[in-house]
């Protein structure tokens, strides 16, 4: 009989061999980097590049019907939808258990060397059709008129993991834009009013990264609590003084964030309001991303789209900024006792796990090119293609605005002088 502790039997038998219990352990045992990003395959295996037919009548004339958010066959009117991706990507696990970096296959690094064109063989007539995948994901065969679509995830960022179809119709978007601009007529630039043509609104799928995160944050600073308030001086020379206790304040928060939406197009991510109006498109977020479906190029038929050109590495600093902002927002209520405020001085963020999904989100966009003082700018009025939330930028007529401001200023100053005159 051995004196060995029975609980150590397994370890003794295995010697220095690593114990394989989790996929991470297995990866380590096989010599792989356990911290390397893990890929989630989101490719729609049911679809190939080329002809994708209606499941009922085999026609290829398919497009989205926004009023239902479903695909409709233009030949037999059959309607259907692709599968939701949420269950496939997130599964049933809690976000608190999210560890490491998980990147869905449509969000992996963009290969700038990837070919910008793809040759598809038409299954209808056998001819070869070239599709410029930098600009579109479907094309019509010029011989037999079949619609050919690109569904495989080409590494140029054109095919995302998922798409959230439009559910707001063109007419609804038109009404929202008219209402928004209608409330801003008085000081709008004369040319904007003359050239206002809301029927030119276009449906655009814009690329975003949808990110789940499991993180912790620490913030440290100083806080003050008022202990006494008193007034010194007499007559008109009274001054209020304050006594306060000063505290070192530290807070820690563990938190998870579900479906944070961040722009993955460099152009849209630039929100310098001196040179563009991208901030209005950012304002119409969020979307009901849980209802996004598997990619099918037919969802884009009749709409335009913008290709993703940002990888996870480029979006990471924005993600960290937003996670720190969320952490600061979350700890705010716990500092209510500091009635003279808190000055945070340092902050730290530990990101335990992230899950990245590339998604096309639907936006109705009215754009107006305007040059003011030699400075060109595109003014957008954007409507969320799911919720209808509307935000926009309307160029103003500076002379009219100045006139209104001076009128108000003169009116107020006249009253002020009258009061002064009456009291002297």
């Amino acid at each position: 009989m051995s004196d060995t502790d029975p609980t150590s039997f397994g370890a003794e038998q295995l010697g220095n061999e690593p114990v394989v219990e989790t996929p991470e352990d297995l990866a380590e045992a096989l010599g792989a980097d356990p911290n390397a990003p893990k890929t989630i395959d989101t490719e729609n295996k049911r679809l190939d590049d080329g002809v994708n037919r209606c499941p009922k009548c085999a026609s290829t004339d398919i497009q989205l019907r926004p009023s239902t958010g479903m695909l409709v066959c233009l030949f037999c009117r059959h309607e259907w939808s692709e599968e939701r991706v949420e269950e496939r990507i997130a599964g049933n696990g809690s976000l608190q258990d999210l560890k490491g970096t998980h990147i869905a296959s449509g969000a992996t690094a963009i290969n700038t060397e990837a070919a910008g064109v793809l040759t598809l063989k038409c299954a209808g007539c056998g001819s070869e059709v070239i599709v410029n995948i930098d600009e579109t994901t479907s094309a019509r065969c010029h011989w037999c008129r079949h619609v050919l679509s690109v569904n495989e995830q080409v590494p140029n960022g054109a095919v995302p993991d998922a798409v959230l179809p439009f559910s707001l119709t063109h007419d609804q978007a038109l009404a929202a834009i008219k209402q928004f601009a209608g409330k801003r007529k008085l000081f709008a630039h004369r040319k904007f009013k003359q050239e206002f043509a809301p029927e030119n609104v276009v449906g655009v799928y814009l690329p975003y990264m949808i990110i789940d995160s499991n993180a912790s944050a620490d913030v440290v600073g100083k806080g003050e609590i008022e202990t006494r308030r008193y007034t010194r001086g007499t007559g008109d020379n009274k001054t209020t003084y304050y006594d306060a206790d000063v505290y070192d304040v530290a807070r820690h928060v563990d938190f998870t964030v579900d479906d944070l939406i961040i722009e993955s197009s460099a152009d849209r991510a630039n929100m310098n309001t001196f040179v563009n109006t991208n901030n209005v498109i950012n304002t119409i977020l969020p979307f009901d991303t849980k209802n996004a479906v598997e990619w099918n190029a037919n969802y884009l038929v009749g709409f335009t789209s913008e290709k993703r050109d940002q990888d996870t590495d480029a979006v990471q600093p924005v993600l960290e900024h937003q996670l720190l902002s969320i952490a600061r927002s979350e700890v705010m209520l716990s500092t209510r006792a500091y009635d003279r405020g808190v000055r945070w001085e340092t902050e730290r963020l530990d990101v335990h796990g992230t899950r990245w999904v590339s998604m096309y989100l639907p936006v109705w966009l009215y754009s107006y090119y305007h040059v003011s003082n030699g400075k060109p700018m595109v003014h957008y009025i954007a409507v969320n293609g799911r919720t209808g939330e509307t935000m926009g930028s309307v160029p103003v007529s500076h002379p009219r605005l100045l006139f209104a401001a001076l009128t108000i200023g003169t009116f107020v100053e006249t009253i002020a002088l009258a009061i002064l005159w009456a009291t002297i």
Partner: protein
Amino acid sequence: MSALLGSAADIANTILATEVSGDDGGGLFWLLVSGPASAVTTYMMIYRYYRNTDKSHSFERETAIESQPITGSDNKVDERNGTTDTSIPGDNREDHRARVRRLP
């Protein structure tokens, strides 16, 4: 336009509510600058209403966030007596997006 007249009336009411006396240098100053100040405020308010340059997605409130109970510490380290500041200098409690020194 009715909103504009409303804001002008508000400003006028504020002035009327201000007690003014000949010796009150501060009151006189505010009375004299009230006209230019209201002109600038009007300009900025209308400009923002049209251009919405201050708007962005409120991800702190509009995203699904689950936090565990907040932990931390509060230690009194000093007293500040006789200050005329109405709040702690550099108060950034509500300015969540203003980044401070990041620790590794």
